[in-house]
């Protein structure tokens, strides 16, 4: 996932959606210490990090990361940077296991009405918030009502609540959440940090603190420097944390994060680029962390509504002209996998049959362009029609520190398209201009972005006609696709709880997208970090964050 700069500007991608939505796939805390939903950090040679030897209580861990939160409240902020910290502080109603099913967390059990509009949760009776307030049905209602209220100005949590209607307190330990329409993704959404439960007494205290019920409690936020968490000694609903203190230190420069880790001034460095992988692998005191969480992949969203790409033949030509295996491998130092579907392989409902279904084929690309009337060439070798050049604009916001992988990919794509006679202009513009051109004037042909999210319903954000931006209000569907069939499949996907029926509906959407080249999936986002060999017992949150609940440090 691309956890970069800001809410407005993820490098080269559609702003917040990219950065923010990683949190979607929340994670399970041990409910009653029994079934834990955490998967070990076994990804890419990581097994040595799983609990080895006996845990040591106490000690502190310094976690070097690039981005400082804008607001610590996960109901308000949509940033990954916030969810990565908050996951250790707030608990959720349920967790999602590696198999994609919901497991107990704060809720011991739940029932779902047959129309998928009512969810009834039975809560644990032994959970208190860090301020001592009980976590009961009234607290759950207060949380969800608050997220839905416009004055909260929620960036991400409100979208996770979907067609929220109301919450009813049945009794102290039973709570009923109702939706205006069938909403199958709710359990997945409820497992995220953004729908995590905060002490209602803390709502009014603003962004600079957070009061949850998790294994760590918020201690301090030194603006511009770090956020400090301490062990929640009153944690009763699972094994308490081992670490006495965790410091999230904000070091925007990657070489400084890596230097701090290698010199022992940090224990974990997060958000490294693929280029750093070799350095990490060469250092025996470090282990590599890498994960490809569920959600959307980095795709080229093509403008289906206007310009040359409104012609499907031209879109298919672009799709087939790109040798993505080579482009992705060279741009990411062999660290990222190329993508075949608009959602990543870790997402439930991923359609593996799309793999190799639209291979690199420059001959086909040329034929499609000829058929579309782009036959002649101008002096620079670009194709023309009615003496107008086949020219595509890739719009992106100018950011301080652009994502190097995406920049390299853009240049390689530009070179590939030139070979078949298409001019690709990489147009990086100031934020204000960008928002206006992207969401009001739709003045672009190509848009590079990755949307996070643990549920295949992320496809709705990407391709539903209802999610087209309008009047300058940013939204997800920048392909501007308005296809009733796709909308219907997306509705089917949220109207059933049956995983197979859902997978079938979403497979149709994925196939439509690649068959008609609505968007071109490019690579599977991978989060890379490195951790000192002193750190043990780390686990991997399904959304791609190292989880500190079970971690300890050996001396």
């Amino acid at each position: 996932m691309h956890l970069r700069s800001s809410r407005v500007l993820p490098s080269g991608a559609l702003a917040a959606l990219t950065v923010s939505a990683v949190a979607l796939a929340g994670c399970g805390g041990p409910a009653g210490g029994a079934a834990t939903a955490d998967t070990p950090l076994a990804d890419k040679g990581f097994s040595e990090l799983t609990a080895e030897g006996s845990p040591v209580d106490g000690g502190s861990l310094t976690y070097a990361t690039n981005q400082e939160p804008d607001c610590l409240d996960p109901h308000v902020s949509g940033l990954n940077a916030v969810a990565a910290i908050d996951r250790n502080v707030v608990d959720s109603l349920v967790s999602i296991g590696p198999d994609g099913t919901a497991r107990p967390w704060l809720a011991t059990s739940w029932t779902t009405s047959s129309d998928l509009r009512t969810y009834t949760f039975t809560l644990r009776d032994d959970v208190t918030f860090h301020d001592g307030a009980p976590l009961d049905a009234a607290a759950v209602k207060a949380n969800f009502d608050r997220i839905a209220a416009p004055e909260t100005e929620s960036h991400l949590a409100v979208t996770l609540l979907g067609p929220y209607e109301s919450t009813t307190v049945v009794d102290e330990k039973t709570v009923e959440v109702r939706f205006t329409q069938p909403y199958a993704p709710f359990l997945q959404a409820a497992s995220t940090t953004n729908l995590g439960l905060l002490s209602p007494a803390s709502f009014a205290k603003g962004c600079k603190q957070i009061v949850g019920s998790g294994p760590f409690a918020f201690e301090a936020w030194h603006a511009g420097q770090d956020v400090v968490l301490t062990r929640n000694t009153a944690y009763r609903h699972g094994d308490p944390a081992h670490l006495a203190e965790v410091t999230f230190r904000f070091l925007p420069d990657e070489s400084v994060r890596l230097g701090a880790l290698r010199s022992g001034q940090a224990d974990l460095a997060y958000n490294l680029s693929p280029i750093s992988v070799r350095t990490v692998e060469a250092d025996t005191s470090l282990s590599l962390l890498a994960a490809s969480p569920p959600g959307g992949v980095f795709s080229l969203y093509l403008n289906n509504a206007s310009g040359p790409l409104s012609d499907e033949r031209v879109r298919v030509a672009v799709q087939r002209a790109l040798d993505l295996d080579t482009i992705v491998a060279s741009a990411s130092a062999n660290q990222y996998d190329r993508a075949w579907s608009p959602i990543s392989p870790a997402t439930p409902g991923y359609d593996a049959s799309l793999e190799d279904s639209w291979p690199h084929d420059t001959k086909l690309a040329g034929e499609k362009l000829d058929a579309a009337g782009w036959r002649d060439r101008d002096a620079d070798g670009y194709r023309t029609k009615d003496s107008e050049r086949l020219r595509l604009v890739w719009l992106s916001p100018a950011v301080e520190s652009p994502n190097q992988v995406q920049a390299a990919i853009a240049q390689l794509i530009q070179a590939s398209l030139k070979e078949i006679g298409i001019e690709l202009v990489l147009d990086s513009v100031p934020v204000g201009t960008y928002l206006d051109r992207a969401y009001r004037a739709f003045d672009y042909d190509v848009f590079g972005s990755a949307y996070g999210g643990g549920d295949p319903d992320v496809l709705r954000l990407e391709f539903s006609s209802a999610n087209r931006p309008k009047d300058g209000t940013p939204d997800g569907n920048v392909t501007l696709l308005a296809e009733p069939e796709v909308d219907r499949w997306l509705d089917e996907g949220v109207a059933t709880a049956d995983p197979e029926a859902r997978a079938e509906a979403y497979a149709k959407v994925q196939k439509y997208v690649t068959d008609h080249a609505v968007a071109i999936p490019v690579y599977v986002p991978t989060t890379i970090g490195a951790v000192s060999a002193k750190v043990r017992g780390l686990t991997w949150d399904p959304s791609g964050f190292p989880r500190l609940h079970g971690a300890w440090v050996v001396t």
Partner: protein
Amino acid sequence: VTELAARAPRRGWRVLRFFASRALVLLGAATVAFLALHLLPGDPVAATLGALPSTPEIVARVRAELGVGQPIPQQYVEFLLRLVTGDLGTSYQLDRPVTEVVGEQLSSTLVLAATAAVLGFALALAVALATTGRRRRGRRFFASAVELTVVSTPSFWLGILLLTAFSFRLRIFPVVGDEGGVPSLVLPAVTLALPIAAVLAQVLRGELDHALTQPFALTARAHGLTERAVRRLALRHALLPVTTLAGWIVGSLMSGAVLVETIFGRPGVGRVTAQAVTNGDLPVVVGVVLLSALLFVALSALVEVLYLVIDPRLRS
């Protein structure tokens, strides 16, 4: 007596003009900031909300909060009135008053900048005094070469070099934060001070060389003053042009802080500025612009007073 009485109102007039001209500079800065905020392309509502799907209710609420839709002149007057009362508006991204956002970071930057300024000046003075005058060709050539190299090195690179050497390898200084007190201040302050020291040393040496060839230096030597004492006399002459560079020094410290604070993970106004620029958080950017303008104006006033202290000839 009559002459003194006649001069009093004239002096009052001069003081008034002194302040009025500076107020005009501030008004100019505020106006430019306002225009940047309102006439740049882009929707402040979109910038406030970030690029997430938002309900029409939220959009309407934010529009009202930002005063979008009122005529520009009315917004301008209201903006100025708010400025006079010390209200710089609210950060889009952090949803907190700009004065608070910038204010709580100010002390950290002031400590860093002041340390760097003192360090830079001291270093420049030492180098210039050690390399000026005859019979010092070799030293001077070496110092010049080092100064030129430092000036032409981007400060983020300088910072990373210092970090790699003294923090990552030798582990003398911590990499991050300002909670470490003096040790954690050393590397950032040196990074910020070196380019300033390099430029100041060049200017000071040139001025010293020039002053030492002046008739007064010859006279002083003829009177049997030691070379040391002659240099002290010459220094006073050399310092005057350096004072003029004060504005440049402040500018260099402020822009340097943006990079240095980001690299060293230090809190401060520079870091806030970098984030605000990246996030398109214009109220914060404008706040920093106005703060810089205020600083420049205050400093130029101080420099004028300093001229009078250093060079008595200007007092008449």
